[in-house]
């Protein structure tokens, strides 16, 4: 079965073999000296196939990167706040890019408002060692937005109720 994936620049086709590679690596790479050999052996492919297909997927952005993802809390980042902003709709792209470029902002998104209960249309996750430090970072964002900050709030997490690795395909 072929899955057609639409990219911004051009179309890219991932085939059944790519799907098998994704399935075999989505929960992590094997911790052995030759991890791509292990994936290849499991799928009955050559190691060159695995490496070249993964390289192609990386070039096309299907693989964002191959890397380690640390747990924020374990590294001492305990002040993780979701800052939310009410900015003029016609400015959201321009302002979002500025906020997203700040080094302490990990994710920055434009999301829909729900008036009157939820006026915020720009979300920016800030990461700091504690809550006070996070609030200072939020002040920095407010200063950057200036008059376009028509109201904001910060939501800190009290408890993780569920956290699972995302299953991409099964």
């Amino acid at each position, binding site marked *: 079965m072929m*899955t057609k*994936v639409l990219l911004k620049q051009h179309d890219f086709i991932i085939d059944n073999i790519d799907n098998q590679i*994704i399935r075999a*690596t*989505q*929960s*992590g*790479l094997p*911790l*052995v*000296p*030759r*991890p791509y050999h292990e994936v290849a052996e499991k799928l009955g492919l050559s*190691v060159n196939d695995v*490496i070249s297909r*993964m*390289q192609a*997927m990386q070039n096309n*952005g*299907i693989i*964002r*990167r*191959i*890397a*380690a*993802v*640390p747990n924020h809390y*374990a590294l001492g*980042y305990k002040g993780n706040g*979701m800052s939310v902003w009410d900015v003029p709709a016609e400015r959201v792209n321009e302002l979002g890019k500025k*906020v*997203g*470029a700040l080094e*302490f*902002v*990990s*994710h*920055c*998104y*434009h*999301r*829909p408002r729900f008036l009157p209960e*939820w006026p915020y249309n720009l*979300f920016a996750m800030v*990461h700091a060692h504690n809550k006070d430090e996070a609030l200072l970072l939020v002040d920095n964002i407010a200063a950057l937005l200036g008059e376009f900050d028509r109201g904001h*709030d910060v*939501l*800190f*997490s*009290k*408890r*993780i*109720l*569920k*956290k699972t*690795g*995302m*299953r*991409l*395909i099964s």
Partner: protein
Amino acid sequence: MDELDRKIINVLQDGFPLVEEPYSEVALQLGINESDLLSRLAMLLKDKTLTRFGPMYDAEKLGGAFSLVAIKVPEKEFDKVTEIVNSYDEVAHNYHRDHEFNMWYVLATETPKKIAEINSDIERRSGLKVFNMPKLDEYYIGLKLTA
């Protein structure tokens, strides 16, 4: 976690090579043995200092759908609603946040249609309004946390 663990985490956040013996290449860069790198990496994953290690796939490019959803849950119903929301495999994360909008979950589904189906199911079962806030645009740079 010691200085070497920190170095390993910082280096591996940057990326990992697509070569036949990638751990050996990274170990060389760190000035350690491949076997030390592998055992330290296994430990960092086991004690959950690292949540993942491997390729990060862009799920949307693979045809999946995502959304962030908020609910204002009355405190006395919180546990009951948590149980309802967490019962779906498609709910990848769920956070209790300090706000009137106190429950925030992330849906990851194979199709956009499924997002709407699960949200209306949750509304029906909880009797509460869900606020579906899918991203309209992303201003993504990506953060590196210094270990």
